[in-house]
């Protein structure tokens, strides 16, 4: 926390130094909301080329009207500067929309203020992007001139304040530059892209990946990257100044979402004399962040709290001292708290300790999608993105570039916005290693500083191809029916697994696919090996098997892929193996339409999708033709999977994304992992089994007779407005088991079966059955629902589903009924939540029931 004197001194500098912008309108220049964001932080530098793949995967989240990246932990050789210069100098990156402005800018805003150690003209491709010529960019590596530094003058505590004062002068200088050459003249000739130490921002009109291509950053290597596709909805004239990221001081922020209280935040900022210059939500967000972070010097936890306050039940569950501080923060800064759906990714360099960070913060209500991931081996990487498949795409291309990485993360998770559990925010900090000075170390923490780590006893995939110690045994086992799980639990190493998989691939495809499905789906001990690393090996193996079907005609299979003629399908037992690579995520050529055509025109009944990468709407459009169709989905499938299913049996061998099973009608959906936001929205029926957890708002407005088993938990708003009749009379229900598997395949109870609020809120039908043997759920999580004892008919109802759940996931009914080692009665373990009579829901007139008598 800064001393009041320092804060006051910095604010005084701003008051005196900031030019007035006159009467700029308090109105956003563009309506926006949409966007795709991705960020990565790694202990070793990663290239622009790798980052590009991930951005490209989410192009459908933008509209080509704005894209940008921010990079920190920069490789000095790319710019032809020294290590000292890249860490110690301000990197003043200026976008020249009008190249003739350069001389004026340099004369007024660079030469009188800075010693320029080096200039670097960012190379650029010829021509336009999205019909607009991107700006020329020059980076000045600068230090403040001594005579300018003197202006800092009388601030106390010279060391820290000296740095703070210098930063403030640079910040004011950029603000004034933007005011003169961008904001107030209306001419928009030049603006500051970034001015931090060891952080660079580039942006243009186009997609995020266009930035990397246009400015030829494929070869740039850096520890931290964030990128953004913008989806603004106004104007045929677009401007790179409106694209993300926006900058504070040593940080850049990208954002998915929009605020309802833009004007309020502008007023809040005006109190300290700050006015937005680019008229977007994102800019005001980072202005608030910078104010709290740099001028007030709040710890990151408090900055996050000010942006995304802890509310309601979560607030009451905080420790007393936090409640006191958070209450003060809310009282002071609530008007600067962005209201609405948003997810921020921030790239930050911290000159004080030479660390760099990736920070991801979700709004309190978790209204935007967000996934975090961590992979830790010889090197570590943390990734946060709007979609899991973009994370997988990055890991995929990263593993191809750098053998220290592999294609699956150790952990994937969602933040719980404004919560007492994780605070809805995570940071990945790249810390320089004191020991050798060369490498770095990645640390992931939540808002409260709690570290997110992976099992340290597990060894990562070796960089060099390891030899198979038990290769002969592995080959023999591949040909036999022997259970290899024992070997995986102890005895085998990665080399043996590879040998086993090689032999499996050489055998009959049907057996290979069955075995691989089992290995991918099941949870078991992997000994000293990492499950994520093994999964990446299984993935490659499955790709090889499917490719084998392409190369060699195989009885019982037919192969197809994107751009191929629709193949003939011999009969209903024939498995159509689809290599989903390069299939567009939506549109007439999409994977989803291919599936519809195969089923409707070729009579396909069994489909296997390999290598999915974010393709949306899988299984949509089959309607009643889907009865009897089985679809196995491997890879990283996209949003809206299984929406509207009406009889299809769909098995997702991994995690799903957002909006799964919307309006699902009948059939079966099995997900061997987690599901994202608004899963089962307005579902009408079908049996759904989820091995892991659901993110926010699952099963909202579900009606009819959906039967759902969620083995993990859900973030918030589970089964709001559930209207699925009477579960004991052909209605619907959801079971929440509140258990999870460790990385090593051990099953255990979660600390709370459901940590959030608004459980079964305003529900008028159906029921929830929550495994809660310790009575952790409380009344205050409900809103109109009520607890009820589990009756024998309730247990008879859910038992068959738990038995099927056992068959699918190996989560035994016995385990679920065992508490602290002893078997219990179902009624002592499961609690029923049912709708309660409430005047908001029930009929107001007695006579409505007359319908029953009419016609009798």
């Amino acid at each position, binding site marked *: 926390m800064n001393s009041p004197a320092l804060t006051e001194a910095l604010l005084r500098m701003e008051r005196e130094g900031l030019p007035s912008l006159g009467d700029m309108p308090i109105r956003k220049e563009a309506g926006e909301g949409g966007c795709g964001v991705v960020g990565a932080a790694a202990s070793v530098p990663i290239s622009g080329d790798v980052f590009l793949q991930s951005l490209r995967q989410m192009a459908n989240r933008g509209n080509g009207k704005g894209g940008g990246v921010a990079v920190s932990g920069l490789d000095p050789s790319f710019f032809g500067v020294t290590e000292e210069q890249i860490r110690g100098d301000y990197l003043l990156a200026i976008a020249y929309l009008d190249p003739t402005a350069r001389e004026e800018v340099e004369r007024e805003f660079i030469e009188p203020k800075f010693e320029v150690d080096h200039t670097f003209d960012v190379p650029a491709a010829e021509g336009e992007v999205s019909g607009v010529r991107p700006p020329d960019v020059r980076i000045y590596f600068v230090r403040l001139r001594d005579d300018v530094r003197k202006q800092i003058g009388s601030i106390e505590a010279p060391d820290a304040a000296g740095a703070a004062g210098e930063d403030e002068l640079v910040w004011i200088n950029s603000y004034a530059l933007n005011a003169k050459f961008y904001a107030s003249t209306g001419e928009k000739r030049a603006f500051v892209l970034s001015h931090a130490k060891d952080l660079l921002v580039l942006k243009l009109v186009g997609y995020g990946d266009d930035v990397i291509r246009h400015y030829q950053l494929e070869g740039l290597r850096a520890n931290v990257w964030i990128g953004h596709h913008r989806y603004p909805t106004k104007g045929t004239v677009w401007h790179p100044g409106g694209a993300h990221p926006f900058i504070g001081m040593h940080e850049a922020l990208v954002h998915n979402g929009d605020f309802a209280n833009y004007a309020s935040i502008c007023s809040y900022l005006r109190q300290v004399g700050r006015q937005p210059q680019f008229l977007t939500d994102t800019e005001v967000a980072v202005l608030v962040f910078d104010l709290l972070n740099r001028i007030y010097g709040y710890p990151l936890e408090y900055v996050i709290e000010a942006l995304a306050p802890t509310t309601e039940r979560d607030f009451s569950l905080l420790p007393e001292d936090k409640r006191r501080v958070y209450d003060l923060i809310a009282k002071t800064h609530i008007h600067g708290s962005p209201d609405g759906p948003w997810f921020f990714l921030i790239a930050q360099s911290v000159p004080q300790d030479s660390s760099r960070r990736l920070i991801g913060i979700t709004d309190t209500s978790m209204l935007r999608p967000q996934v975090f991931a961590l992979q830790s081996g010889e090197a570590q990487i943390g990734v946060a993105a709007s979609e899991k498949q973009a994370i997988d795409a990055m890991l995929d291309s990263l593993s191809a570039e750098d053998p220290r990485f592999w294609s699956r993360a150790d952990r994937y998770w969602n933040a719980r916005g404004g919560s007492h559990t994780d605070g809805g925010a995570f940071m990945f900090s790249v810390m320089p290693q004191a020991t050798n000075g060369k490498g770095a170390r990645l640390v992931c923490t939540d808002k409260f500083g709690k570290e997110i780590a992976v099992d340290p006893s597990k060894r990562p995939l070796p960089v060099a191809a390891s030899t198979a110690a038990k290769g002969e045994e592995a080959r023999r086992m591949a040909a036999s029916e022997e259970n290899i799980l024992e070997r995986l639990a102890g005895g085998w190493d990665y080399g043996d697994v590879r040998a086993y998989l090689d032999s499996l691939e050489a055998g009959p495809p049907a057996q290979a696919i069955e075995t691989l499905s089992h290995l991918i789906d099941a949870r078991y001990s992997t000994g000293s090996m990492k499950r994520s690393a093994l999964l990446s090996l299984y993935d490659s193996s499955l790709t090889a098997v499917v490719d084998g079907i392409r190369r060699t005609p195989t009885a019982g299979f037919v192969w197809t892929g994107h751009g191929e003629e629709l193949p003939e399908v011999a009969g209903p037992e024939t498995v159509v193996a689809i290599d989903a690579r390069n299939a567009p995520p939506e549109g007439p050529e999409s994977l989803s339409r291919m599936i519809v055509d195969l089923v409707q025109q070729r009579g396909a009944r069994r489909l296997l999708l390999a290598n999915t990468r974010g393709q949306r709407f899988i299984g949509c459009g089959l309607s009643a033709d889907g009865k009897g169709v089985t679809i196995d989905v491997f890879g990283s499938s996209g949003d809206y999977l299984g929406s509207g299913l009406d009889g299809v049996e769909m098995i997702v061998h991994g995690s799903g994304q957002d909006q799964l099973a919307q309006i699902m009608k009948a059939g079966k959906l099995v997900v061997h992992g987690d599901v994202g936001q608004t899963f089962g929205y307005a579902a009408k029926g079908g049996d759904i089994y989820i091995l892991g957890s659901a993110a926010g708002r699952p099963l909202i407005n579900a009606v009819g007779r959906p039967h759902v088993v969620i083995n993990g938990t859900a973030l918030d708003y589970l089964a709001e407005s559930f209207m699925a009749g009477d579960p004991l009379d052909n209605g619907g229900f959801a079971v929440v088991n509140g258990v999870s598997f460790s990385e090593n395949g051990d099953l255990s109870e979660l600390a709370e079966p459901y940590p959030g609020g608004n459980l079964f809120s305003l529900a008028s039908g159906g029921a929830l059955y929550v495994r809660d043997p310790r009575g952790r759920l409380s009344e205050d999580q409900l809103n109109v629902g009520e607890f009820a004892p589990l009756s024998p008919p309730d247990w008879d109802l859910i038992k068959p589903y738990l038995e099927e759940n056992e068959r699918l996931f190996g989560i035994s009914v016995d385990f679920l009924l065992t508490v602290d080692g002893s078997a219990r009665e179902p009624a002592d373990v499961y609690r029923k939540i049912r709708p309660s009579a409430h005047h908001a829901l029930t009929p107001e007139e007695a006579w409505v029931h007359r319908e029953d008598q*009419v016609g009798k």
Partner: protein
Amino acid sequence: MTDATSNAPAVPKFIELNVRKHEHALHEGYKNWPEMGFEPPAMGDARWPADLILSVWTQAETGRPPTDGSEYRIGASGGGFDVLDFKWAAEGAALAPDAPVDLSLPLNRRSEGGRRIDIPVPWYGAGMSFGSISERIMVARATTAKKWGTFTSSGEGGYPMGLYPLRDHVITQIATGMFGVREETIQWAPMIEFKYAQGAKPGLGGHLLGDKATTAVAEMREAVPWVSLFSPFPFHSVYSVEDHKKHIDWVRQVNPEALISVKVSTPTDIDMVAVGSYFAGAHVLQIDGGYGGTGAAPEIAKKNIASPIELALPKVHKFLSSEGLRDEIVVMASGGVRTAYDVAKCIALGADGCVLGTTELVAIGCTRCSNCERGRGCPFGLTTTDPELSLLVDPDWASERISNLYSSFKWQLEDILRRLGLSSIRELRGRTDLLRYTKERPAA
């Protein structure tokens, strides 16, 4: 459905009497009502004065506007459409009374092509759910739509069987509760309407009070009978424009042929919403003003949140024009469009056409008594799904009346165009120069 009366329960005497009187009034006008010893439950309000209601009844009876001097063009609200009049063309510039004029409207104007759907009149029917109205009324509206080559909208309450034969003329609405939405109802619809908001209650979801959620309604929605049914606000899967695009992509994946309509209310940034909808792939943008009808909106919301359609239309029209997108998207206006003159004024203010809701109900006997939210609140069997009350309306009779109203609207619009010297309704779009402000009642 039309023969449902045959084995239906007997209608109680007092209701039958009430209806007979009402029907009589519908035919004769309320002039004779006093002698009948029965007070109508209501007779309009400032936006819908008694004159206007009676004029609509005349039109529904005769297919032409009244000739007895009754006002059929404007209401008495003292603002909006009611203080706008046309600047008629000078003598000689008007077209001859028999000159051909074109009222047809293409609903897909996107330059990337796709299915073309033209409707011969510049309007279609608004979404009213099974639940808000009875299946008989839905069938009546759809029958009229079929006869006229235009559309009606399913609303959000499922797709009753009675609509199946008429489905080429039924827009499937997908609203936030997605009640009764199945892949089939998406696949067989010529147009899909995403209802994001309703002008009568922006920021609030759908709300069907418990006593309208009869067993039949609940069955259609697969919910619990006699319990209030909420549609949330907003779509929980759509909190941003890229979600919106994804949502539209989903429907196009299920039915690649369907046109896409996006129904929104009129917030202050309606211009941004319009452009966003275009970029997300919409063919039609329906903007629903603050005077939109609804039975079940809280009083505080009605007319008090959304802007009037008269304000929103020019804003959207100008903005789309300045963005170079005006000829790429069709703007349909709704929310308080009562008369043929309102339709023409909407178009002059910048709409391509209009969506009619309440007017159609008035044609079949609504007196604007505002009891629509009750299960047995509607004395004339319109906004009810009560198995007894809904029998009061014969679908064929109702369809005939709505059809007659359409005839009258068509006749009037042709007349308006000729008097303005225009030969096509499309030439009228955005011609605010042809409007004038006046507090006086327009000359007959």
